């Protein structure tokens, strides 16, 4: 067996879900599993980029940016219905195995990492962002905000971008001053060194001035609500401020029949939360139950899995008290999904931002997953909703 064929057995797929196409994404995950492939955790880990649904302009820009981050050999595909998934994956796999095409692709790419798209923002200063880290400078593009398309910047340059202060808590003016100072210093790759964040800086309980970073979470992030873009301000790994919005699908796109609110949707939420809780084994079994339900069956293992998950003390200990809402915490919601009890209530985007503020990045991810947001429900919400 030659190496390419051998390598193809472990093809890693980065799935991008557009709001409204969760059924296609579920079908993709099922097919990926059936082929013995796996889902990628980040662009660096991925061989294939598969977009489920028809993204709108900003989401498309984000996906393009992520595409530039795949190391290669790489292939890209878009799929809009669950039925098309096998054919699309076959095509993508063939493209991946085409050595000549891959060499052409590799030859046409710059040797050095590309700077983030936000660097070309309308004030032309994005690159000088003093936070000097991550998303906006193009090294973590799955989080990157393609926002310059409509003048809405990535939060990455929020504290120096004078014409966009929405939701950034007024840290802008001081950012300007810091930037001028930084410009006199040597800056690696044109990025200012991380430092005190001016007015963004919150007093630290330990008296340490932690670096202030503006890190956009989403819209392309595995195990994350489709299209959700959460602008976060991090101090160390602590979210000190957040603002949520949803990037829209293409206007004319007819989406899938909804999965949210169905038993399959509940198991999808269970699978997502369990992956993030680091319990891969139970997560993949939950995804299999979900796929069984979507296929119209009544998976017999659902009951056993429910018992196993609800009995796990370690899981209860790690989810207890997270994302507390009037009707319970993350573990209560997990139990409700498993038993099918409890009403679905929709969480406002502003509430999401409020819930994650004050948590560390990883806990924030667990809380967001525990809310089971239906971003497809929200496609009419104006961009920038929440505060």
């Amino acid at each position, binding site marked *: 067996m030659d190496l390419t064929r051998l*390598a193809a057995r*472990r093809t890693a797929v980065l799935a991008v879900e557009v709001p409204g196409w969760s059924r296609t994404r579920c079908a993709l995950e099922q097919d990926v599993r059936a082929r013995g492939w796996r889902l990628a955790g980040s662009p660096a880990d991925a061989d294939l980029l598969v977009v489920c649904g028809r993204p709108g302009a900003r989401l498309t820009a984000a996906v393009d940016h992520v595409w530039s981050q795949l190391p290669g050999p790489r292939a890209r595909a878009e799929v809009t219905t669950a039925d098309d998934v096998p054919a699309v994956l076959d095509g993508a796999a063939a493209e991946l195995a085409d050595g000549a095409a891959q060499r052409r692709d590799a030859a046409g790419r710059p040797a050095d990492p590309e700077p983030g798209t936000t660097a070309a923002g309308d004030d032309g200063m994005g690159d000088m962002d003093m936070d000097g880290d991550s998303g906006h400078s193009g*090294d973590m593009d799955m989080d990157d905000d393609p926002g310059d398309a409509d003048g809405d910047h990535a939060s990455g340059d929020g504290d120096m971008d004078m014409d966009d202060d929405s939701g950034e808590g007024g840290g802008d003016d001081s950012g300007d001053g810091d930037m001028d100072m930084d410009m006199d210093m040597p800056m690696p790759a044109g990025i200012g060194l991380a430092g005190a964040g001016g007015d963004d800086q919150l007093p630290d309980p330990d008296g340490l001035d932690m670096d202030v970073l503006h890190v956009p979470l989403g819209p392309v992030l595995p195990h994350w609500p489709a299209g959700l873009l959460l602008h976060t301000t991090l101090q160390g790994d602590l979210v000190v401020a957040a603002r949520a919005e949803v990037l829209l699908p293409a206007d004319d796109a007819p989406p899938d029949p909804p999965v949210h609110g169905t038993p399959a949707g509940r198991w999808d939420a269970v699978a997502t939360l369990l992956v993030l*809780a680091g319990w891969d084994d139970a997560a*993949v079994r939950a995804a299999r139950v979900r796929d069984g339900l979507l296929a119209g069956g009544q998976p017999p293992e659902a009951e056993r899995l429910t018992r196993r998950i609800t009995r796990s003390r370690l899981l209860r200990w790690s989810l207890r008290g997270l994302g507390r809402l009037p009707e319970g915490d993350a573990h209560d919601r997990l139990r409700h999904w498993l038993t099918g009890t409890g009403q679905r209530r929709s969480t406002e985007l502003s509430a999401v931002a409020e819930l994650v503020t004050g948590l560390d*990045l990883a806990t924030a*991810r667990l809380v967001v997953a525990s809310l089971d947001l239906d971003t497809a429900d929200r496609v009419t919400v104006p961009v920038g909703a929440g505060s």
Partner: protein
Amino acid sequence: MTVTEVSVGWVPVAAALLLLVAAAAASLDGALAARSAGQPLGGGLLAPVAETARLFGQRRRTTVAADLPLQRIGGAGLLTAALLMIAVVPFGRWTVADLTVGVVWFNAMDVLVWAAVWLAGWGPNSAHALVGGYRCLAQALSYELPLMFALTAPAVAAGSLRLGDVVAAQSGLWFVVWMPVAFAVFCVAVAGFSVWGPLSAPTGATTAGGVLVEASGVDRWLLSTGRYALLTAGAAFGATAFLGGGHGPLLPAWLWLLVKTAGLLAALVALRRVLPVIRPEQFAAPAWLVALPLVLLQVLVVSVVVVVQA
């Protein structure tokens, strides 16, 4: 049973053996994963080979303003630490380095992992990788001190820090029988410095892969292989220090060590299937308030037994 130091020429053999056992562990993990996914086990068993083929064919990827030297040191650090760990573990009657301070050497190498994981997180200049690095240090603070005291117990019982002496002291009774707490703490710590299972938060999905998030190609291979190698080295050390090393009936000593290592390694690999990840900030309280006093008590018991016997 005496342990003799072999010539330097055997070092590559020892390294190959470590990688081979580590690959077997990865195969086992692949097979277990395939079973939960409802897929044929064959594909899972081949997973380490296929993943190696995939990663060796993948382009190496850099990030904007990455600290490349430090990133590379961190990436290679895990595998290096694992190789240095097994250098002191006697393979039956042979050992690569018969250090008089073997136990301390092992401990020093596992502290080296702190630096390696942190640098792998720091290097790429990426928020998620950096947070992965933070989380590694946070949980290391919890497991390291209990681990140090857990390593003290066999050394006190054997009256020596040399691993050959530790094995010889177990000719009658394995240490695990009367040091169960130290052994349990040691196993948890092995998962910790291998960034594995319940203690894999630094590479967890909550941080999109943490220290692994920006790694591709050979860099990712080194980190993943390093984790399995550390798990293997930890299991080999555990088999030596707590499970009687090469002691056992009928079979030659080296085969006994291999069997015991494989058993412990399989248990550690399976741990990942059974347990979710522990959040590092929650781990500190039980580690310092429960595990540390218990393991100190264990050392006290061992010391009293040694004094009474003398």
